[in-house]
């Protein structure tokens, strides 16, 4: 089934992605399958969502895998990418200390949970880095009709998800996280609120347009996207994490 490597002009695909997909182990798990199936080699660099997209802007990526809809649309609007292809999702979750001092377990929506946190004056750690997660968090505060930014229980850390979870753990505070990073992260925090539709976190693939940098590996990017959206890859995604966490970390979109 392996296509002859000779047919591939440029076998190296540079994938720029966010820490959540990489640190959760999903990509390292998929990588060997992809490489074996297609004969391509994939070089994964992960960074904050902003940096991951920026690296695609500077021409240092062939393909993008991120989860920040509006930034992605801007990116494509500016003519850097071809098309945004949502292919998997998971959920944001609200995590916090086991004791749950704000009692958010009883809340029915995320906004309600946030309001409970604000009312109880419990600490809340915000990523504060304009990432997809941060944008989502701000949206929930807005829905709850609360502006927490000046409150002293509101800790804005300007950091990645992993570090934010660490701070929340230490401060016995609440935070909003994507589920994959939370499950992969070692800490004492408890998953307290898991919502359905309004806490959905969608990941998309974008092939970088070859128009700007002639050596952009467009064919490779398309091959990667094609493979990632193939039934085989989607099955692999749905299976990932079940063995370790008892549930999948990501859900494929078919």
């Amino acid at each position, binding site marked *: 089934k392996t296509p002859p490597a000779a047919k591939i002009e440029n076998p190296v695909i540079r994938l720029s992605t966010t820490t959540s997909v990489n640190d959760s182990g999903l990509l390292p798990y998929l990588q060997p399958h992809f490489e074996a199936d297609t004969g391509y080699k994939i070089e994964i660099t992960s*960074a*904050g*969502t*902003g*940096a*991951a*997209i*920026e*690296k695609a*802007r*500077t021409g240092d990526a062939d393909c993008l895998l991120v989860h920040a809809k509006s930034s992605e649309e801007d990116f494509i609007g500016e003519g850097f990418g071809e098309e945004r292809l949502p292919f998997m999702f998971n959920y944001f979750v609200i995590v916090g200390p086991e004791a749950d001092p704000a009692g958010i377990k009883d809340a029915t929506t995320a906004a309600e949970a946030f309001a409970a946190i604000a009312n109880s004056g419990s600490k809340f750690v915000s990523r*504060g*880095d*304009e*990432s997809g997660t941060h944008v989502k968090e701000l949206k929930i505060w807005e829905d709850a009709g609360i502006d927490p930014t000046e409150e002293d229980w509101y*800790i*804005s*850390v*300007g*950091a*990645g998800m992993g*570090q934010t979870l660490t*701070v929340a*753990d*230490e*401060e*016995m505070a609440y935070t909003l996280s994507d589920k994959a990073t939370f499950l992969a992260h070692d800490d004492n925090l408890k998953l307290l609120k898991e919502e359905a539709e309004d806490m959905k976190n969608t990941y998309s693939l974008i092939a970088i347009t070859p128009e700007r940098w002639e050596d952009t590996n467009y064919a490779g990017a398309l091959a990667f996207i094609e493979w990632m959206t193939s039934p085989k890859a989607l099955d692999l995604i749905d299976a990932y994490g079940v063995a370790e966490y008892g549930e999948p970390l990501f859900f494929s979109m078919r």
Partner: protein
Amino acid sequence: MDGLIKAINLLFGENPELRQIIAVTLRMSLISTGISSLLGIPLGALIGSREFKGKHWVLRVTNTLMGLPPVVGGLAVFLVLSRSGPLGTLKLLYSVTAMVIAQVVLITPIMTGLTATIISIPAPRIRETAQGVGISAWRQMGLMVYECKSQLVSTVLVGFGRAIAEVGAVQIVGGNVQYKTRVMTTAIMMQTNMGKFHFAISLGVVLLVISFGINALVNYLESRGKA
């Protein structure tokens, strides 16, 4: 360019946050450089000024600790200060104090090693003369430090450079908490992660300018001190 103008606007404009960040940065760097110097210079002078068995090994360990990865040093301090750590009850994590502690852990070996290296150059001659008039080993050490004053000032500036430029440890134990423990480097890191590369570089330039100012000031004070 654009980023630099933005940074300068931040610095001198309405937004007081950059000024606040610079204040925390300076507080942290100056205090940790001070403490590291107070620990590292005497320790380095002790090692550099004397001949003793196992000196080679002490120097090797010091040299190795000079290459302690900031992240590892930061993590170690984190684990000590964390809620479940031995000093967890002090609740120092995510404070400027915690950052100072981490910096002291990282910089002290540097001050120690460089001081030992420098002091070892004039040490034999000073020792012979000083011992000849019955000066105690402790006072000898003091004299050696005095004689290497201007070189040790450079060493202190090296320490300060490390303190102000370090990000790994400071991020872990300080947490980059807005209005509290956010310093120049963690702010730069944040901008970088947000993909605002040029703005990050501009903040870096601001940091270098501050660094240069401190250097020039210290050099000026030192040259005045020479009379």
